[in-house]
């Protein structure tokens, strides 16, 4: 009888804990300005590629002098060689900016995937090839504008890369 009483006490303790509902939804956190998307690689990677990055320019690349560090607002970490898709977000660690955080709201004129074939990393325009461009509204005739709003993440910033069919290269290449 003592055993049964002990079991009942254990069950009651157990049940009282079980009646707590466990995990519950956290309150909504305010979003920060930023972007996220996916790069899809639809062709095999050429062996000659030494590094690949996502790059975002504030102003359009109309002339070679627009390809300057002051115009570059984001350079992702290196995209792993050979991957078929790559997910990115402005909250990822990146080469530029050096610390992840809210991305400055505004319009960004040129968002692209760019690769190099040189052994050493180079900032010279001639050493970079654009392998994919972000387009909007299904218009592939001109680069899409990335719009970043205050306290909002711009999603689906998706880019397709076909190494066999590179897009129109910006001036200076």
């Amino acid at each position, binding site marked *: 009888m003592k055993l*049964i009483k002990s*079991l009942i006490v254990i069950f009651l303790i157990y049940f009282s804990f*079980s009646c707590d*509902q*466990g995990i519950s939804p956290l309150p909504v956190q305010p979003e920060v300005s930023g972007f996220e998307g996916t790069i899809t690689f639809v062709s095999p990677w050429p062996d000659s590629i030494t590094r690949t990055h996502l790059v975002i320019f504030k102003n359009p690349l109309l002339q070679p002098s627009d390809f300057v560090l002051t115009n570059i607002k984001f350079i992702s970490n290196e995209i792993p060689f050979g*991957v*078929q*898709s790559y997910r990115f977000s402005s909250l990822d660690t990146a080469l530029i900016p050096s610390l992840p955080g809210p991305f400055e709201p505004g319009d960004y004129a040129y968002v692209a995937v760019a690769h190099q074939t040189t052994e050493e990393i180079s900032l010279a325009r001639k050493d970079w090839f654009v392998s994919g461009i972000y387009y909007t509204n299904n218009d592939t005739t001109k680069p899409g504008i990335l719009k970043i709003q205050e306290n909002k993440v711009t999603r689906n910033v998706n880019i397709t890369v076909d190494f066999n069919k590179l897009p129109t290269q910006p001036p200076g290449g």
Partner: protein
Amino acid sequence: MIRLITILITFYSLQFYSQSYEISGRVTDMEFNPIPGVNIIILNTSYGDATDEKGNYHLKNISPGNYELEFSAIGFAKKKIKTSITNKSVKLNVILFPEPIKTDEVIVTAGKYEQKKSELPVSTEILYGSTLTERNFRNLEYAMRTIPGVVMTEDQISIRGSSGYSRGAGARALVTIDGLPFYTGDTGEIVWEMIPTTEIQRVEIIKGAASSLYGSSAIGGVVNAITRNISKFPRTMINAFYGFYDKPYYNEWDWSGEMRPFNGITLSHSNTFGDFGFNLSLTRLEDLSYRKDDFSKKYIGFLKLEYKVSQSSDISFLVNTFNKKGGSFLYWKDSRNALINSELVTTDRIETNRYLIGMNYKNLLSEKSILFIKGSYYRNNFADNGIPANTSTSHLYRLETQLTSSLNERIVLTSGAEVIPSKVKSSLFGNPDAISAGLYSVADINFDIPLIISVGLRYDYGKLDSLESSGSLSPKVGINYKLYDNLIIRSSIGTGFRNPSLAEAFTSTTTSGLTVKPNPKIKPERNITVEFGTNYSYQSLFEIDLAVFQNEYYEMIEASVDPLDGKIFFDNLLRARIQGFEASVSVNLIPGVLKAYSGYVYLNSKDIEQNKFLKYRPKHSFTGGMEFRNWHLGLGLYFRYQSRVDEIDNELIDLGIVRDGNLRVPVYQTDVNLSYDLVALNLPITLYFNINNLFNYNYVELVGNLRPIRNFSFGFNLIL
């Protein structure tokens, strides 16, 4: 005077015979399989009988009156039933339930030949097939959670803390079906859902390294599923169920606005024609799931053919097929959308086709020697809807020969050799080949004391494609000492090893926000296990089993993030120590009617270089249950507790891949089972009703993966 007495005796005897009746019926197990050899006695009389092969019994020449019948059989709980005879014969069909306490009577094949459980030097648990059916465990994975010392992190098994979670790449327990290893050639994972649970007679779980007999993968233990014996009579089973998930506790999780249903049906038939017999079953399972993108439709086929070649030899073939089309839920969007797939998940549909074909040949070479030849082929194929699609096809072949001999009255020697080549063609892992081979020998030496010493040694060779080949020597020593008939002491020390799976060595992919890179330098991991245990039972009323254990892991393979490039890879990262204590108790509170059981495990699992807890290992876990069976009614209450795990995949949270992934709580799961058999109406049907997660408690085993919310199911099991 003597003449008068003689006349009276004759008169009463004639009257007795003219008014005598019979009590007859059939004795079966819970699934209406006949139990031959059941002793039936009418208490306080000299009447008695035993059941025949079909489970039938007849007690004749019973005069009217009130009687109590006792039914007893080896391996089953005794049952007493009261009945009265007035003016007609009585038909009394009876169901007997397995008796788990009398360990001396339980036969296991964990040592690759039939032994009594009580004579093993290692901790072993038995799970009966009838439990799988009754509690509607249509995936063996769910049932494994009820075993003390076993922790499941989603579909990955951890026996006494052997494993964390590596998304299906490799397993630290070997699962076999009728002794045939059951892991895929590419990922080395266990596909639990492929095992046809309605065809399982029992599952034996060996805790601790068993590589000395089973080789790679058995580093943490072995799960040995034994399929049903083929019926000697035509036997058809129809099992069906329908169920639904309750609404989620929080309204914001209610993504569908409806109670999501699930259902399943199994048809199986078994028969014997002369020297030939078969078990055949087909199962269809459909689950619309409580989570979005997590639905599934599965078809499981199973065929077991047995042919008695001669008086001393037989051969059996086993075919297990599995087709699944379904969603692919990886992790939640966030805690407010806990039942919706993350938008980072790029592939949300998957189709798999798997086939296992096996052969078991057994030849009694002499009174003292049995030869076994086992072969199998396991084809595994899956494809998802990624752009481009990820596909993988693997072929795993296996051939083993084993000789078990009684060298003399004291020594049983089991020796064998096996070879396992595999081939993979995959967009994820490339096209690697692998081959492994092993030689083993285990001697069980019986002394009069009574003491059994088990000594074993196995050598394994492994070569994974371009990786350097490796050799592993796995010795093991165990003792089993029966201090008294009901008090057993056991102890063992053994080593284990595991070759990395092809997936761990060669995966190269980016999916759903994760990039995995290959590691061509990965090496096998190794461990040493020490266990000391004792078992005490008092008649069939009470049993307690205690064990302390320590596992030392060397070069343990874990998934990690390379800080240089943020990519995930598998490497020999850890020097780990897992220590623990295990206690399980079974009590027959009212023999044959009410029983209770529980198991507690304490685990201290440490990465001893970094002095951190190992991932996904709860420090405390507790399982328990109470079962009542009487008047054709069964009522079970089951519960499971696990303390909150200390360490998880923090990288997935830090990288922003699993939002709110840090949310985790202790596990409290309570299930209820209600069953009712219609044997009293001469109908071979059992009806059952299950409530899982009675309190709708929300918990995760893996980051961002809420376990099933409260669900209800009802079904039946009909045997013709």
